[in-house]
C-alpha cells in the first residue's frame, strides 16, 4: 500500500476526531474500559488529534480490543460514531502490519473454508444426533475467494505478510 493512501486514510480519521470534545461519555459507556483501564477510547481519539501523521501508528494492540458493541456510538453527544472510527483505525493498523496474529488467522480460516469455525467430525455427529440436515460441501467458497481477490483483500493480506517479514 502506498504511503499517500495511508496518509489519506489517517487524515480521514483525524477529520472525524476533530469535533470530539473529549467529554468521556464513550469511556463511561464502554464495557472494555470498565474492566481494563488501559483501554480508553477517548484517549485513543485524542492521540489522533495531537500526533502528526506517524508512519507507524504504534498504538499497540489496544484498538483491537474494541468489541464493536456500539454502546459509545449511541451515546456520543457529538455523534462521532466512535465504533465506526475504531474500524478505520483498525484498518490503518492492519495496513501497517499492526494486527494481532489471532485475528489474521481467523480471517484466513474464513477465506480457506468459508466459515469462521470449522466443520469437525464432532459437528457432524452432533448434527446427526439432532436430526439436522448434512452440511453441504463448500460450494460458495470459490466465489468467496474470487470476491476476496476482486476487492483487494487478498493483496492487502499478502503485502501485510511481506511487511511483517521485512520489518
Amino acid at each position, binding site marked *: 500500500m502506498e504511503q499517500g493512501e495511508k496518509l489519506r486514510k489517517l487524515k480521514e480519521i483525524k477529520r472525524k476526531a476533530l469535533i470530539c470534545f473529549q467529554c468521556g461519555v464513550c469511556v463511561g459507556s464502554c464495557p472494555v474500559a470498565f474492566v481494563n483501564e488501559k483501554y480508553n477510547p477517548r484517549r485513543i481519539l485524542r492521540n489522533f488529534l495531537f500526533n502528526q501523521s506517524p508512519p507507524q501508528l504504534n498504538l499497540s494492540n489496544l484498538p483491537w*480490543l474494541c468489541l464493536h*458493541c456500539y454502546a459509545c456510538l449511541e451515546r456520543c453527544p457529538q455523534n462521532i460514531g466512535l465504533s465506526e472510527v475504531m*474500524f478505520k483505525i483498525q*484498518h490503518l493498523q492492519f495496513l501497517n502490519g499492526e494486527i494481532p496474529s489471532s485475528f489474521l488467522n481467523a480471517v484466513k480460516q474464513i477465506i480457506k473454508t468459508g466459515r469462521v469455525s470449522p466443520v469437525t467430525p464432532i459437528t457432524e455427529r452432533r448434527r446427526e444426533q439432532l436430526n439436522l440436515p448434512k452440511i453441504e460441501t463448500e460450494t460458495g467458497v470459490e*466465489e468467496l475467494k474470487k470476491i476476496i481477490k476482486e476487492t483487494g483483500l487478498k493483496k492487502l493480506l499478502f503485502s501485510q505478510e511481506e511487511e511483517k517479514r521485512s520489518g
Partner: protein
Amino acid sequence: MAERETGHKYAFFPGCLVTTRLPYIEAAVRKSMRRLGAELVDMPETTCCPEPTLTKALNQKTWLAIAARNLSIAEEIGLDILTPCNGCYGTFKTVNYIIKTNEKERVKINDTLKKVNREYKGKIQVKHVVEALYKDIGKERIKKEIQKPLKNIKIAVHYGCHLLRPSEIIQLDDPEQPTFLDELVEVLGAKSVDYERKMMCCGGEDLKIHPQTAYSILKEKLSSIKEADPDCIVVTCPLCMIQLDENQALLQRRHRQNFNIPVFYYSELLCLALNINLGDQHFKLHRIKADEVVKKIVKS
C-alpha cells in the same frame, strides 16, 4: 414480502457458529418455527455472513460484497432472510441498509458481484428469529399454542449488542431500554427480572485478542445477574451463548467462580413451552447443567 396465505416463509441462514458449534440452537429454531406455522427454506452455497467486526476492519469493501452475495441468494429464492445469530443479523441489516439507501455503494457492490455472476437488488428484508416471532408470528399466536407455561420461572434477559445497535440502522427497539424480548419471555409465562448490567456486552468478541478482558466483562455480567437470582439466562445469539454458557463453565473450573446459572437460547424455552420434544441429548450439550430448569418446566 415473505408473508403468504399459508403462513410465513423465510430463507434460513443459521450462520457459522450455530451450524458448526451450537447446532442444538438450529434444532430448536427449526422445530419451534415449524410448530408456529413458519416455513424455513435452506439456502444453497452460502458462506460466512461475514462476521461483523474483523472482515469489516480489514477491508470494508470485501465485507460488503460477501454479505451482499449471501443476501442475493435469498433474493433469488424470493424470500426474506432469517437468522438466529446477532452477528449475522448485524452484518446483514447494515449491508442491506447501505444497499437500500446508498445508490453509489449499491453500484460498486454489484460491480464486484458481477464477477461471480450475481446481483443483489436490495429487495428483501433481514430478520432475526426473535424479531420474526415478535413481529410476524406475534405474541397472540404464540400464547395460543402454549401447552406448558413457564410458571414460576425467573429469567434474566440478555439482548446482545447487534440485536439493537446501531439503532439508527437496526430499528428494532430502544437501544437503552428495550422491551420486546422481555415481552417474548413473559408470553411464555415466565418472569423477566431486571439486573444492573442488562445492557452490557457479553465480551465474547475479545476472546481472541485479550481473553482476560473477555472474562472480566463476563464476570461483571454474571455477578450482576446472580444478584437478581434468576432460574436461567436467555440469549438470542450463539456467541453470547458460548460466552455466557461455555465460558461461565470455564470460569467455574479455572477460577472457582460459582455462578451456576443455566443459559438458554430463546427458541429452546419456546420449544419447552410449546411442549416440543427436543430429545434426550439436547440439553446435555449445554455446559452449565440445565436439567433442573427443564424438569421444572416439563413437570408443570
